[in-house]
């Protein structure tokens, strides 16, 4: 759904616009929750939401188009009755965690699915450790956890009591 113009750069940020909310959609079964949480964050921040789908390398054009449409549908359902929330749709190929960290540079928050305990690839953890923005992990419709920039989840848990009071951008967390 998109054409990369230069690899690695983040979305345009103007001093006039709130920074973007990035929804990292990967094939982990949590795309709908991630999209929904990202839209809620975007509404809260009056920001744009960038739906970024990361696909594995080597898909045929038909498979890619099919995944594009599926991701578009997920995003549309998340945007239900939120007509004023601006958004973009991007599809990139590569290793999910690295691509999301790369693409979320300059964003306010990156929303990704929370790693399941037995996950082979820990996208959420990698993003929490390497993303330059806050990372919101999601594992259900109302199950979200925000890790501010520069803190891994475990470190955040220690800080959570203090951060909850002085982080005005903090989303509802569990």
């Amino acid at each position: 759904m998109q054409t990369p113009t230069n690899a690695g750069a983040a979305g345009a940020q103007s001093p006039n616009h709130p920074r973007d909310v990035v929804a990292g959609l990967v094939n982990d079964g949590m795309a709908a929750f991630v999209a929904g949480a990202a839209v809620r964050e975007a509404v809260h921040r009056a920001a744009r939401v960038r739906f970024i789908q990361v696909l594995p390398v080597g898909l045929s054009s038909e498979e890619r188009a099919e995944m594009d449409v599926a991701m578009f549908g997920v995003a549309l359902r998340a945007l239900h009755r939120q007509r004023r929330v601006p958004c973009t749709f991007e599809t990139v190929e590569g290793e999910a965690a690295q691509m999301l960290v790369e693409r979320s540079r300059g964003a306010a928050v990156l929303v990704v699915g929370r790693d399941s305990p037995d996950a082979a690839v820990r996208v959420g953890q990698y993003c929490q450790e390497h993303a330059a923005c806050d990372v919101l992990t999601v594992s259900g419709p109302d199950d979200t956890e925000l890790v501010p920039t520069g803190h891994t989840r475990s470190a955040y848990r220690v800080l959570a009591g203090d951060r909850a009071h002085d982080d005005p951008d903090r989303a509802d967390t569990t």
Partner: protein
Amino acid sequence: MTTPIERTPPRITSVESEPRESELSKGGAPPTWLATEAFDLDDLLEDLRNRAQASDRAQERLAALLDAVLAVSADLDLSDVLARIVRCACELVDARYGALGVLGADGEHLVEFVAHGLSQEEQEAIGDPPHGHGVLGLLIRQPRPRRLRDVAAHPDSHGFPANHPVMHSFLGVPIRIRDEVFGNLYLTEKQCGTEKQGGTEKQGGTEKQGDADFTADDEAILVALAAAAGIAIDNARLYERSRRLRRWLETTAEVTQLLLEGMDEASAMGFLATRTRELSEAQLAMVALYDEVGDLVIRGVEGGEPSRAAKRPGAVLGTVLHKGYWRELIAEHESVLLLTRLGDSTIDSLSADVRELGDADPHGPTALVPITVGDDEVGVIAVAWAADAETYVGNVVPLLAALAQEMGLTLAAARGQQDRSRLALLEDRDRIARDMHDHVIQRLFATGLSLQAAARMAESTSVRRRLDEAVDDLDAAIKDIRHTIFELHRPTPFRELREEIVELVRVCAKTLGFSPSLTIDGSLDGLAADFEADLIAVVREGLTNVARHAQAASASVRVTSGDTIQVEVADDGVGVAPSAVQSGLANLRKRAESHGGSLTVRARTPRGTALVWEALPDRE
């Protein structure tokens, strides 16, 4: 503009006639109890005089404030209201410079900045308006009145940009609309009055360098004005909203009327695209509808000046939108607002697909709104704005969604109307065929049998021969009637001719670069084949002439069927030159005359040409 009421200072004649202290002391005599009394009385009178003057000034300012409130409420145009508020605020507190910053949806940044006191050249020399950093951001973060002796010395100050005039004294107050902070009023450089009252924020001992400080009275006056300004802005916004809503409803009614009056869908969608672009203040609007075989086909595009476009908007008419997300969008019944910005690392191809249909900027907001009726999927409206329209479009998308919903109902109603009239025609034909078969043919057949019997009984050879001939004629008549019945059960020629004209106009749109409007008024049922061919030729020749010679931006085709059939092809082009070769028109004239009609070509006002072909219909 405010007009402060002129007031005459009150005179205290009896007090001013009393001898002054200096006069009492002239004689050098020691002050007596009388002199002491006079001294106290002078102080008292001076105090009274000061109080009277202060009261008078307060009344003057109150009157000026009321004038300002009236002034800011006197107009309902939002931009005028904002400019008036700033101007009145400057006049009320004698500020040299003033500005009103409007907050964006995020409540953190200024998206509009209305300045007063700076010329256009000075504003251009400064460059981009402030976005809400520095001291201006202080009011955004903490929306309460602020008075500063020297704005540049404040810890939050980021300094002034190049070419910005030096400013010292500062007064800022927020403007609220109900519970929402709409923006802030900023005033600088108080011009008159030197009184310095308490309450000015300390700034680390920095001395004031401007002409004067703003006072607590100034602050109170400005707070009061800001309250009135909030109401005026709210009224202006409500008025703007209702006016915009009325225009959208008018457009809905117009398209509905056109469709129900018989205009074909392609022309009506072209009109819809044009009006949608105008109302949305967008760069491009596109309407696509599902056709009979389920393809999503572009039926209307309006996208700026065709001469600037690499691909003329009309050239995309009839294009099928193949990509799957169009269908997904319509199937989900959800509108979406895409937003790409200059500098984005990726190009949203969905947005680009729309913007490339016309002459829109490569970046900016793009709205995609499905047209549906209940569970039925009808089509989609897409609108693309310029990059700087980002703050504006949020309010337009709900209006677009409402328009799309109305269009869904209108299209369903128009299609239902067409289906009903087609069904009524078919039923009528069926009834006629049945009556002819059941009644007319049976009677003729009976009559024929009777005549055959009579012929056998006839003794005269000539009578028998004539009866046989009559029976043969009846047989022939019965065969003709059976043929007619067969023809009546064939697919309706009315539909074929009508659709042929619609298709012809649609094809011509590609050549023209725009979609001509088409209206077919009345039934084209039962026309002779050669008349149908002539009618098609008139429409084709008329539109071809427009494409070749007229340099037109729009054209219309109207076919009116009554006692005569009239075809009018009109455009808004350059007109027909007297020296132009008119062989095509001569052919059309011959076709009209062969049907007892005529051809007229006349100039239109203010520009353009109308070709009117009229003939007596030959019916089968």
